[in-house]
């Protein structure tokens, strides 16, 4: 019954290291989205999962970014060889449907990533 959860809430890493961010969607939600929010900017779409369909990766900024989701459960966003420009808050959202008028996205609290 809880909302979308994300872990860790904060992550500090050194440039060049890999990081994994986790998202637990609301139970029963088939769609899952990842967004990035850089300081002073709006959210940018990264990737979208819908059930067992191939994910929409059109928003991933480089091949250092990847994400996985098993079925309709947990998703992990992986950033390899982190760069300072990757510093941002990474937000996950889930929704019950796959778009359209009924689709309301519920957001998690985010993971604040700082790359030193």
């Amino acid at each position: 019954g809880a909302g979308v959860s994300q872990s860790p809430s904060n992550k500090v890493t050194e440039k060049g290291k890999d990081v994994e961010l986790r998202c637990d969607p609301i139970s029963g939600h088939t769609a899952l989205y990842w967004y990035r929010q850089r300081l002073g900017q709006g959210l940018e779409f990264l990737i979208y999962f819908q059930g067992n369909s191939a994910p929409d990766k059109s928003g991933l900024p480089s091949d250092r970014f990847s994400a996985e989701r098993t079925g309709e459960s947990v998703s992990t966003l992986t950033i390899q060889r982190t760069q300072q420009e990757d510093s941002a808050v990474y937000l996950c959202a889930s929704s019950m449907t796959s778009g359209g008028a009924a689709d309301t996205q519920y957001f998690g609290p985010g993971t604040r990533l700082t790359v030193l």
Partner: protein
Amino acid sequence: AQSVTQPDIHITVSEGASLELRCNYSYGATPYLFWYVQSPGQGLQLLLKYFSGDTLVQGIKGFEAEFKRSQSSFNLRKPSVHWSDAAEYFCAVAPLLTGGGNKLTFGTGTQLKVEL
């Protein structure tokens, strides 16, 4: 490509005063339109959304928004602001596609400060 403009980065109002936050979008057709609020340390919360029909949409916490096709605008209003409304407000759009997910495009946000 679709885009969202929130021309006011910061707005300060007195408690009890009325509020209007501006949002303009650029898109080839009428998209889905959303307003989200982000309070410190909390995730994004949906205030209201517009898909079709009545152009005046009622949301939670006493907020409303009016869709004006001729002006490509979706301004958020509240007749009397409460101190607890201090937060950052994001306007977002999604294309009118079904089955493809509502990939939201966000504005850069308006930070609302409420003076007591």
